[in-house]
């Protein structure tokens, strides 16, 4: 029987169970839910071309992400740094993983490489911003997590130390994303050279205060911690070609003097990387991204917003300590005021326009009247003219008629005399 603790505020007392309750099944429920949902992981690979990034990705995930038909970015020469992403859905044991690989072809390949990290930073920030916006929306049901969870940085196996470009890049990115430096093409180095190189790199990383992702321990294992400390950064070799060695089939690289096995712990640290990255620490990488890097980004972004708000208003008190809610309230008020102002302005403009229109209408009305008058006058003038003409015409007509009558009479008389004459003539 479980008793409720006396005070709710005080520390929660631990009770022993006297029977099987069943909440030990909680992890299974979480597991089932997560498996149904599927997982997402975004991995970014950065390094100069020719360091074996594509080969390593293919080896890590045992797929041909970059194959002969779809050659990796390093085979296409780029003039500027591009950021390309490719999504792949892999399934294993009922668990789905949406893997996004972000590649940066053209990084460090030009003669002048200043600011070649800028596109990378922009990409990471834009993904964080998308997530921030999605989080602040009203409907948050579908929230895809496209943030970059891990950045594998490839160091060229010079054997000396870090290049200025490496240092700059890592300095700028270590507080935005989990940076895991790797020594690429590690089959170039003999074991002693490798140790020296690793020491030198770690020294330089500490000198420049770069915070790389240190694999934390899942179990408290002193030995593994020690080993892990020495092994950073990991020296990797990638290959997807299967070669037969002593009857065993292994993945490796065939040289005239031997075969460098990819999965052999003594040859390179590939297995360590794979186990850390996929088998034990994938969730931790996501958590660190969410809790640390994303939170940093968020607080930076929102602090910037409050900073801007403080500048506009005339209040003198310290605006930086405002909570976002108050800031939003303020913003809303401002917005409302702005709207009101706009409204009055618009009304004014409207009035003015109406007046203008009225004026115009009046003017045109007057104009029309004038024209009407004029036309009337014209019409009257024409009418008079026509009357005149008509009268004239009547006169003429009456004259002509009078003439006709006279002519008629004359004709009549003429015909009468002719008849008389005819009669006279007939008598003869």
């Amino acid at each position, binding site marked *: 029987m479980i008793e409720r603790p006396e005070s709710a505020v005080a520390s929660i007392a631990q009770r022993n169970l006297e029977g099987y309750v069943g909440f030990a099944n909680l992890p299974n429920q979480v597991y089932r839910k997560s498996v149904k949902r599927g997982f997402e992981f975004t991995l970014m690979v950065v390094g*100069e*071309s*020719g*360091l074996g990034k594509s080969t390593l990705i293919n080896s890590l995930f045992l797929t041909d992400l970059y194959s002969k038909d779809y050659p990796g970015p*390093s*085979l296409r*020469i780029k003039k500027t740094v591009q950021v390309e992403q490719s999504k792949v859905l892999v399934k294993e044991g009922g668990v789905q993983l949406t893997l996004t690989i972000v590649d940066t072809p053209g990084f460090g*390949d*030009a*003669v*002048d*490489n*200043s600011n070649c990290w800028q596109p990378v930073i922009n990409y990471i920030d834009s993904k964080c911003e998308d997530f921030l916006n999605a989080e602040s929306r009203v409907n948050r049901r579908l929230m895809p997590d496209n943030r970059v969870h891990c950045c594998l940085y490839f160091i*060229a*196996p*010079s*054997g*000396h*130390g870090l*290049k*200025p*470009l490496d240092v*700059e890049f890592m300095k700028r990115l270590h507080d935005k994303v989990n940076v895991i430096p790797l020594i690429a*093409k590690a*089959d*170039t180095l*003999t*074991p002693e050279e490798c140790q020296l190189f690793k020491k030198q790199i770690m020294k330089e990383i500490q000198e420049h205060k770069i915070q790389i992702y240190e694999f934390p321990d899942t179990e408290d294992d002193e030995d593994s911690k020690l080993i892990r400390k020495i092994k950073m950064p990991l020296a990797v070799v990638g290959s997807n070609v299967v070669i037969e060695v002593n009857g065993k089939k292994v993945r490796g*690289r*065939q*040289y*005239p*003097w*031997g*075969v*460098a*096995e990819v999965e*052999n712990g*003594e*040859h390179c640290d590939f297995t360590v990387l794979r186990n850390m990255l996929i088998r034990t620490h994938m969730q931790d990488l996501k958590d660190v991204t969410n809790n640390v890097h994303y939170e940093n980004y968020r607080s930076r972004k929102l602090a910037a917003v409050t900073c801007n708000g403080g500048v506009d208003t005339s209040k003198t008190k310290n605006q930086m300590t405002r909570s976002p809610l108050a800031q939003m309230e303020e913003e809303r008020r401002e917005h409302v005021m702005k709207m009101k102002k706009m409204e009055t302005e618009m009304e004014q403009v409207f009035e003015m326009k109406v007046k203008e229109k009225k004026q115009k209408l009046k003017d045109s009305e007057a104009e029309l009247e004038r024209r009407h008058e004029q036309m009337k006058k014209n019409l009257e003038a024409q009418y008079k003219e026509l009357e005149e003409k008509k009268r004239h015409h009547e006169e003429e007509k009456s004259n002509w008629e009078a003439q006709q009558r006279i002519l008629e009479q004359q004709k009549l008389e003429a015909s009468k005399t002719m008849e008389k004459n005819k009669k006279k003539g007939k008598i003869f």
Partner: protein
Amino acid sequence: MSESIVPPEVRPKPAVPAKPPHVAAPSPTAPHGPSGLGGGVGVDRVPGLGHSGSGSTLLGYIGIDTIIEQMRKKTMKAGFDFNIMIVGHSGLGKSTLVNTLFKSQVSRWSSGWGGEHKIPKTVEIKAVSHVIEEGGVKMKLTVIDTPGFGDQINNENCWDPISKYINEQYEKFLKEEVNIARKKRIPDTRVHCCLYFISPTGHSLRQLDIEFMKHLSRVVNIIPVIAKSDTMTPDEKNEFKHRVRKELETYGIEYYPQNEFDDDMEDKNENDKIREAMPFAVVGSDKEFQVNGKRVLGRKTAWGVVEVENPNHCEFALLRDFLIRSHLQDLKEVTHNIHYETYRARRLNDNGGLHPISANNTQDSNL
């Protein structure tokens, strides 16, 4: 070297490891023998003497062929100098390779430079000289290193200091030549050969490589080499070489041995063979390991030992033979006759005469 012919009393025994000159009195064919100027550490190249137009036959032994022996003696007494410049960004194994080539610690790391491998902020030119001797022949070898090349974030014009250095050496030589009272033997600090190290990316040349070689192939003999070639499997190596060669052709970069300077068919054939194999994929090492009971120079990895002098593993032996055993003198000649002459002509044309020398000497000087 003066060329006075001393009539021999005795026919000398051939001491050089070459085919003995044979007397062919009635035959019109020219006698074989090592020709060419000067000796080296071993001469493998045996080009034949050209036929003279009329082919005069020798009726007895005169002893003209002893000129070779005389030259050899003079060279041995005087010794000769060779200046090699190594260019490439840091970590490509340049110093190791130079040490391996000359089988001694001649690079700047070895000459007490200290362990700090800090990358300098600008390209520096560091020249280190050593005198090495073999078989009685003394060679003053100067290795000119260029730390800081291609290591910065912004590598614009990082070849300028190198170009300046090369031209300065030509200028020095020119000044000496133009002097009234010339030294008997002008010290030759001109760069005879520039080894350019290509990073073994496996894909193609980098932009910086192309820019550098374009700018400098007209001023100095450039020999491109693929560094740290134990990164690549044999297939990858061949593909990479092929691609690099094509790219060099596309950009019109004439590396040594240049096509245009082949004297005759034999030279051309030989050089063609070499050009096909270039750029050499090399591995350098100055450590020895035991392999099959033999002690070899190599690199020991967990999966095997890379033997530096094994032609199946890398082309170091080819590079060494090419550079030292057959074309050393030719490198110097091309530098003197062609690159230096180009510089000289340009210089004299530009200025219409050298005025650094005092005015009352201009009438007597060679201009």
